[in-house]
């Protein structure tokens, strides 16, 4: 029975490498926003076509309660800041499109809606909770990340948007 320190060290290194592999990097403020190319209600929706605008990207699903709460807020944002160059883009992550359509029938959305049943866009945006929202500046970089939605979050999100609209 012989266990040399070197073989143990090699084994430890191997185990660490295996464990560390699936970790991904978080999408934080300041990082360039990944592009989106998804089917919308009528035409395809891409982030590239919104270049030069401030985009509020929100990831939602029909089964998520706080998402439902956030819809009137996003309607408000679109009508209040749309003229100043804000686009609200809500990306649906329902596995079944029918669920999303039913939700949209109940809760009116006066902003751009896109559909991603695969969840691939959420993976690239590193969504950590539902809903998650990202304020993307005119330069195409992430200005703010917000996880979840509660009524008291309105003020904070709105101030971040106003701030981003003010920066060229």
């Amino acid at each position, binding site marked *: 029975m012989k266990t040399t320190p070197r073989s143990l060290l090699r*084994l430890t290194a*191997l*185990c660490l490498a295996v464990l560390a592999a699936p970790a991904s990097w978080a999408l934080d403020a300041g990082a360039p926003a990944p592009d989106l190319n998804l089917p919308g209600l009528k035409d395809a929706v891409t982030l590239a076509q919104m270049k030069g605008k401030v985009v509020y990207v929100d990831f939602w699903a029909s*089964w998520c309660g706080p998402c439902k709460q956030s819809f009137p807020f996003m309607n408000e944002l679109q009508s209040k800041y749309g003229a100043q160059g804000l686009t609200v883009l809500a990306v649906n992550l329902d596995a079944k499109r029918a669920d999303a359509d039913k939700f949209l029938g109940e809760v009116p959305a006066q902003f751009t809606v896109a559909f991603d049943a695969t969840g691939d866009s*959420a993976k690239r945006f590193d969504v950590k909770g539902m809903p998650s929202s990202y304020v993307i500046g005119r330069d195409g970089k992430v200005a703010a990340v917000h996880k979840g939605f509660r009524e008291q979050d309105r003020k904070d999100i709105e101030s971040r948007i106003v701030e981003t609209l003010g920066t060229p």
Partner: protein
Amino acid sequence: MSTAHDQPLVAGSTPPTTRRALSRLGLALIAAAAGLGGCAMSPPQPWEKGNLALPEMTMGGDALDQRFIQHIYGSKEAASGGYGVGGGGCGCN
């Protein structure tokens, strides 16, 4: 840890040091495979929790069913209380 034989099974085939190294490599490979197996089950992503968010997935999803379970529990175990329903364990309430 190491199960290397100091005596080669077949005399003159491979030197004992090589055999030891080979067995160590085998052990390391088994450990790596076990480690990879642990990665096969990944938790659902935040956007994949549609089914988990259904009302029947919660502990008290169905009120009537919950009440029935509490009733049986209180009757059989003489352990009622704390749920708003009284019981004596006689099976009669």
